[in-house]
């Protein structure tokens, strides 16, 4: 593994980087040298790219491959859909990673992974060699499970808005165009899916908007799960406040979509909507799901919890929503950021010829808006358990808000600004 030329190149880079930030704050030297390719610039990928550079004191080269020119945040995007925030509030640049941290950011997509040769192929035709590969591709929608949404045209009409971007703005437009007295229906897939409380937050925020702007309208929440999957007591209370405008229906799995008539076909019912918002079932992103990595339930990548390395493919680490989660671990941006830090630490150890840290700890904080100002949280802490070889929730830790409150509304926005900076600035 140890390569003298790579070492000298890395040493030269580290020596030439004294003016860069990150070095002054570090007291522990890093022997790690090499090239890490990161695929996906979301909460997981951007964070691992920054922390690899920061903790190696620029000793490790990092290339980030991201298909979008800018980062658009899913957290806070429900406030754009409700009209409380603008797209510009959730859109951030990759320039901090480029200029402050020296990450090579390529706007491209990876079309193939050759784990044996440690190379990835880019859509633009290039090939990147790596010592370690980190895949943070997020989720892919399983449209094969939603008959009616086969075509691009159908998907442009019945939106998910579950990956922040053009669909976020488009869903806002659909709600603005809806007449007073219209029906907004949101379908939720069976867990696990990205951001467990997200759909309920969206339902609350859309109800809050409609209550003010189009009070004769209705919000229908069609949940495939048998009950609210996150912050149940608090969302139940919030839904009561929207009584008359919001209706929650559990055990309502979507079977088919009639796009032309905007009808959600359930097992025993058909629901007609004016704005139909379908969050499809999800699995690991293609680059992780189709590269020979071991999957669980044919959907999520099975990883080693000390390093987030694939259990069957050496040198390939997978983080964020794409992995099969440890017990009670949510698929969240916050958690992806925490995966990223454990992975950055593990990779730097491995590149220095050392074992990963034997006792990683991760934690989650998730704030949800129930209206423009009031927020509820859920928090948890997860510690590696050597006997179980997985990450287990720490008993007695974590919990939810006592009640929705404005102070946590401020903290939620503070959380967003700090986590965005933690990954990108």
């Amino acid at each position: 593994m140890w390569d003298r030329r790579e070492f000298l190149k890395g040493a030269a880079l580290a020596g030439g980087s004294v003016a860069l930030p990150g070095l002054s704050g570090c007291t522990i030297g890093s022997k790690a040298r090499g090239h890490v390719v990161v695929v996906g610039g979301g909460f997981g990928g951007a964070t691992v790219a920054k922390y690899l550079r920061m903790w190696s004191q620029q000793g490790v080269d990092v290339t980030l491959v991201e298909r979008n020119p800018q980062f658009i945040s899913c957290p806070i995007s429900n406030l754009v859909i409700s009209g409380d925030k603008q797209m510009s509030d959730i859109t951030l640049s990759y320039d901090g990673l480029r200029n402050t941290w020296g990450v090579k950011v390529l706007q491209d997509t990876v079309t193939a992974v050759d784990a044996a040769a440690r190379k990835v192929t880019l859509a633009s035709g290039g090939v990147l060699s790596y010592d370690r590969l980190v895949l943070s591709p997020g989720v892919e929608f399983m449209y094969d499970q939603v008959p009616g949404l086969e075509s691009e045209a159908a998907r442009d009409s019945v939106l998910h808005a579950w990956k922040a971007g053009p669909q976020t703005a488009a869903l806002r437009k659909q709600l603005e165009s809806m007449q007073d007295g219209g029906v907004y229906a949101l379908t939720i897939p069976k867990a696990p899916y990205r951001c467990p409380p997200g759909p309920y937050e969206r339902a609350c925020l859309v109800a809050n908007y409609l209550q003010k702007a189009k009070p004769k309208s209705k919000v229908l929440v069609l949940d495939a799960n048998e009950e609210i999957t996150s912050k149940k007591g608090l969302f139940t209370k919030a839904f009561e406040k929207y009584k008359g405008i919001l209706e929650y229906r559990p055990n309502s799995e979507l079977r088919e979509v009639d796009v032309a008539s905007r009808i959600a076909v359930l097992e025993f019912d058909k629901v007609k909507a004016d704005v139909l918002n379908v969050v499809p079932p999800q699995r690991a992103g293609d680059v992780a799901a189709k590269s020979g990595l071991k999957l669980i339930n044919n959907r999520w990548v099975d990883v080693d919890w000390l390093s987030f390395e694939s259990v069957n493919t050496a040198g390939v680490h997978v983080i964020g929503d794409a992995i099969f989660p440890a017990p009670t671990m949510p698929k969240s941006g916050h958690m992806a950021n925490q995966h990223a830090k454990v992975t950055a630490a593990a990779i730097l150890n491995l590149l220095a010829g050392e074992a990963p840290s034997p006792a990683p700890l991760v934690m989650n904080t998730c704030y949800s808006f129930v209206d423009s100002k009031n927020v509820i949280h859920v928090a948890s802490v997860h510690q590696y358990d050597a006997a179980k070889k997985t990450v287990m929730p720490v008993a007695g830790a974590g919990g939810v808000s006592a009640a929705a409150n404005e102070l946590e509304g401020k903290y939620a926005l503070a959380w967003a600004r700090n986590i965005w900076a933690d990954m990108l600035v």
Partner: protein
Amino acid sequence: MKLFRWMLAVGLFGVLGTAQAEVKADPNLARNLAATCANCHGTDGKAVAGSGAEALAGTDKAKLLQKLMDFRSGAKPATIMHQISKGYTEAQLELVAEYFATRK
């Protein structure tokens, strides 16, 4: 293969002796634990100015540890920190406090 490498590493620590092995075991533990706080409190405890989150960088170690322990015992009320601090052992909180105290 991976397992073998780790066994080798563990074996080497054994040769070096227990005291040294404890230090050697995870020199980055404090850094790694403190990084779990950054999502809300900023990278290395340097919160975004004006964000409303408390910056932890450069805080006196004893003061910060006391605060964390008070959150943990419930003596100090909070919206969320009483729940999060319970997820860390006292030894882990001490490492976190020490790490932030040295950040400037």
